[in-house]
């Protein structure tokens, strides 16, 4: 949908069409599943949320008491896990379309293992940090680190909820097309959160 086209539209000039025996003009409401549209809008909202945090980060960074923070090496490993999770879900959404129930189950399971791996990895990074004396309020870079990674992990857990519902259905023997939409949505969401994570990671490294 091109917003400019929409705003310059002249419905009274368009040619009417026949629908179910009646002549009406098109309503342009498309048949994309509403869940997809809602997800896109939601990703916009989450994007703005993190974008504002990033802006705050840059501004705060310019102030006098900012001290750089060590970057735990384990974050690289966690990134790899999330990346694999994202890929697996993409692959799952592919095999769902081909209707291969067995592969779908494997895909969902693997995706969850990688994703939980990522979340536990993050938790263990937090433990390392606190063990070394870098607490939430020790310095502003740390504060941002905990807040950003925490919020990001919460969003991942939110996605896992949709994943769980889809998996429960598949395990209970539902046909793959039933979960096709949810798996596709999960894949999109995971890619998005991977992007957000890469941005967060870049920011943390850039102290």
């Amino acid at each position, binding site marked *: 949908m091109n917003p400019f086209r929409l705003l310059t539209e002249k419905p*009274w000039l368009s040619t009417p069409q026949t*629908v179910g025996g009646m002549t*009406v003009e098109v*309503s342009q*409401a498309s048949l994309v599943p509403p869940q997809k*549209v809602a997800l896109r809008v939601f990703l916009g909202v989450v994007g703005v949320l993190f974008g504002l945090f990033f802006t705050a980060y840059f501004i705060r960074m310019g*102030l006098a008491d900012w001290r750089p923070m060590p970057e735990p090496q384990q974050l690289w490993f966690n990134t790899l896990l999330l990346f694999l999770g994202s890929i697996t879900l993409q692959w799952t959404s592919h095999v769902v379309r081909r209707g291969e129930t067995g592969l779908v189950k494997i895909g969902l399971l693997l995706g969850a293992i990688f994703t939980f791996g990522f979340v536990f990895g993050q938790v263990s990074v937090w433990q390392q940090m606190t063990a070394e004396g870098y607490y939430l309020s020790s310095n*502003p870079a740390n504060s941002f680190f905990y807040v950003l990674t925490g919020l990001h992990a919460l969003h991942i857990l939110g996605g896992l909820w949709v994943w769980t519902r889809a998996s429960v259905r598949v395990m209970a023997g539902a046909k793959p097309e039933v979960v096709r939409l949810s798996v596709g949505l999960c894949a999109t969401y995971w890619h998005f959160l991977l992007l957000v994570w890469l941005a967060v990671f870049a920011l943390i490294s850039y102290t």
Partner: protein
Amino acid sequence: MTSYVPIADQSHVMHDPHTFITKYVWSQDHKVIAIQYGGTAIFVGLIALVLSAMMRLQLGYPDTFSFIDPANYIQFVTMHGMIMVIYLLTALFLGGFGNYLIPLQLGARDMVFPYLNMLSYWFYLLSVLILLASFFVTGGPTGAGWTLYPPQAILRGTPGTDGPGIILMLVSLLVFIMAFTMGGLNYVTTVLQARTHGMTLMRMPLSVWGIFVATILALFAFPALFVSALMMLLDKLLGTSFFMPALASLGQVSEHTGGSPILFQHLFWFFGHPEVYIVALPAFGLVSDVLSTHARKNIFGYRMMVWAIVAIGGLSFIVWAHHMYVSGMNPYFGFFFAFTTLIIAIPTAIKVYNWVLTLWHGNIRMTVPMLFAMGFIFTFIHGGLTGIFLGNVTVDLPLSDTYFVVAHFHMVMGVSPVMVLFAAIYHWYPKITGKMFNVTLGKIHFWATFLGTYAIYLPMHYLGFLGVPRRYFALGSTDFIPDSAMALNANITQAAIFVGVMQLLFIYNIISSLRNGAPAGGNPWESVSLEWQTPDTPPRHGNWGDKLPVVYRWAYEYGVPGVKDDFVPQNVPPEEVVMEPGAGKYVDRSEGHYS
């Protein structure tokens, strides 16, 4: 492009809920949710109204009321402001009218995600309860001002910082934002995808346009409030220093290091200014429909109105720092924001002209909703003009934080949207309840409110010129505030109490008319938009009976020459329009006449 509309015609809503609980409590019907939102919002609004009466009593008659001390006063100011802006206006326009009107005006059976919609209401209720709980905790609610500026918002000495007051406020805001996001995703998706046959975007009533664009603004502006509330909560609870600078307070050096209070101001107003339009755009939309219906004329310049709504929505994100002229910013920065602020006046003025031109040569019916809608035009022009004063840096500097500002924002975002709310409630009341309200009471309510609010706010401009500061418990004796100003304050208070009491008429009217009102019929105002064409009034679950309506034209076909009824509903096929004898064939005026 296919035109078939299965998404609007969801079959699952066709199963009527049976028990009382599923019908009225855990309801997923957009109309019930709308009423739940509306009722809750009006309820908290009344609390905010009582708070304003208390403030006025103190200001009008200082040293008289022992139950108001300086701490209470600033707590009242804060809770009054926050409740009015967020929990009343935002919730009532979007949660209330958005929920009621979007599916009905677009010809859908319900919102696309009814369950999420229900959740949205219960989260909203939760946020309200958390907010109200702060009245009952030790130390009472926060007294940080509705802008919640740090550092004072969370430093000892400000009311609500010894107890959980400020924490409850911040948590309540976070919950509210989650509630809104659930609702907002619904509104946007429904508008984009659940329109019925023939309902193109450029045929939607302006109410839906206003609510739609306001929802998009809110979805992208509330994150800024979310971010600032969350970081402030951490500053308060866990000792981080996002916003808190290093400082000594009450003789103690605080644990905070060099955070930036200005950063908070930027984030807050990046939300705060769009918030003004989150409230204003739905009001613009609703009032356009009310004016057009009761003037029996098509809205003047429909497409221009849509563009103006979109343009205002876009511009509202780049003017926020006009609230921060006194924060010590770079003068070039101030110049930029003054410039954008004045630009936004252009689409706004276009809208005002178009409303006036809609009335011009109309066949005006002075109904109660029409009175309120016309009252809105007055108060909005008034508040808009003082906004141009305050948008200019050099004029704003001396007026900042005075009663001139209080007068300005009450006119533009207090009284004006409330006028529209009343217009809209009276206008749609017959559809929502099936009953007609008492017209005489409605007219008394209008004149009391309209004239009364002028009696309150007009003198405040003058107080502002004198330099009377806002958020002050008492003025004491100063040279620049003459005794006459004190007398004026007493008069303002009398007017405020009068206006407040007259709102009881409204409450009485809407409640008693439920029982005693005359049956209104399906389309008492002879409106053309779809919600007035439902098979049942009030509309039943699923709205449309077995078949969705089909739309043939725009929502403003009033006063059509030659047509017998002087209006043509959106869903009447051209061949079925009844003409006056000898008037010839019906020509859809949409053709070319309203570009």
